[in-house]
């Protein structure tokens, strides 16, 4: 299964885990599964059906915005990363 990596600030909304193994063949399907298991996490990432504009998603090392956005296909072993904006400093 593809794995979705959860950044530290969002882990409290994902039951404390740093990654989730989720079934699906596109990024959208993975996030649908993620939303069923952790609705509060989905709320942080999505505004309705759209990704929030300060949240970026990468499949392996590539930004999905220049792949096929949420329809970007994923295969077993692929790593999907949620990259939040980091404010501090």
């Amino acid at each position, binding site marked *: 299964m593809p794995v979705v990596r959860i950044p*530290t600030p969002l882990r409290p909304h994902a039951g404390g885990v*740093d990654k989730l193994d989720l079934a699906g063949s596109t990024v959208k399907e993975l996030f649908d599964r993620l939303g069923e298991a952790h609705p509060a996490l989905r709320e*942080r990432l999505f505004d309705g059906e759209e990704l*929030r504009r*300060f949240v*970026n998603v990468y499949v392996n090392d590539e930004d999905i915005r220049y792949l096929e956005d949420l329809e970007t296909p994923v295969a077993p072993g692929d790593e999907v990363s949620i990259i939040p904006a980091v*404010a*501090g*400093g």
Partner: protein
Amino acid sequence: MPVDSLERYSRQMRFPALGKAGQEALCKSTVAVCGCGALGTVLANHLARAGVGKLRIIDRDFIETHNLQRQILFDEDDVASNLPKAEAAARKLRAINSTITIEPVVTDIDHTNILALVSDADLILDGTDNFETRYLINDAAVKLGKPWIYGGVIGSEGQTMTILPGETPCLRCLIETAPPPGMTPTCETAGVLGPAVSVIASFEAIEAIKILSGARAALNPCLIMVDVWDWTFRQLKIANLLGKVDCPCCKGRKFEWLEGGQGSHTTTLCGRNAVQVAVRRDEPLDFPELASRLASFAEVRHNAFMLRFAAEGHEFTVFPDGRAIIKGTNDVTRARTLYSQFIGS
């Protein structure tokens, strides 16, 4: 600078990719360090030691004891002396390297002053702790065509990217809008580890040295993400965002923060239970006059850089430019009221 004085940089000049020519270029450079907290102190420390000819250190804040865990240029004496961060940093940096020019500027970077603060700089460095200022830096850098380096840290993780306007994606290509307050954790809410900040600021500093010494080919074109607790280091490919994303800033040349349409001058300092109230003044505040006015009901302390008093359960820190940081509230309206009540409008 006489040639002999380059001796102090001999160990880095022996590094072949820098060399004497690279060092001489560093010595002729001007850098604006925006924000002198955790990232900014590490950045300024590296660049002053490396011999960057002129450093402008811009910061709006004063030093508190809880800063000392990670803000490497400050010590307990600075807290006791009520020094603004920019001034305290300048004193340390001059002791570290007296052959360079350090210019401290105690101000809040906003759309009215940023162009003047960065227009003579060869490079702008992000030592800030908030997205409002970062988007403002991004607007200014893109408009002026100047390179800048973004860095952000929270907890044990951080990210950095180098922006060469027109050549690489800008901050808005990467993150189109700033997260609304409360949607992302801050160092005050989620904590931050000193070494995590040092790692990210050191990456920013090395990319700065490459840019200033003319070694742009060695720059890292990725968004770098590091977690020092989990030992993860990732380089995300972002170069394609430049062409793909319809960026309002670097493609549309629409500078929303610079034009003052975004961001506000009076802001909650997130997670600190404090509000910064900024009132633009033509003349600097007269501290002795203000102190005598407040003396009947509050104990007032002031030096050349700031004036502090407590009233109605709030601590007020006032700067000569009219700004005040009011602790004990997150309510902007309440803070404005307190400001007019005690400081005046």
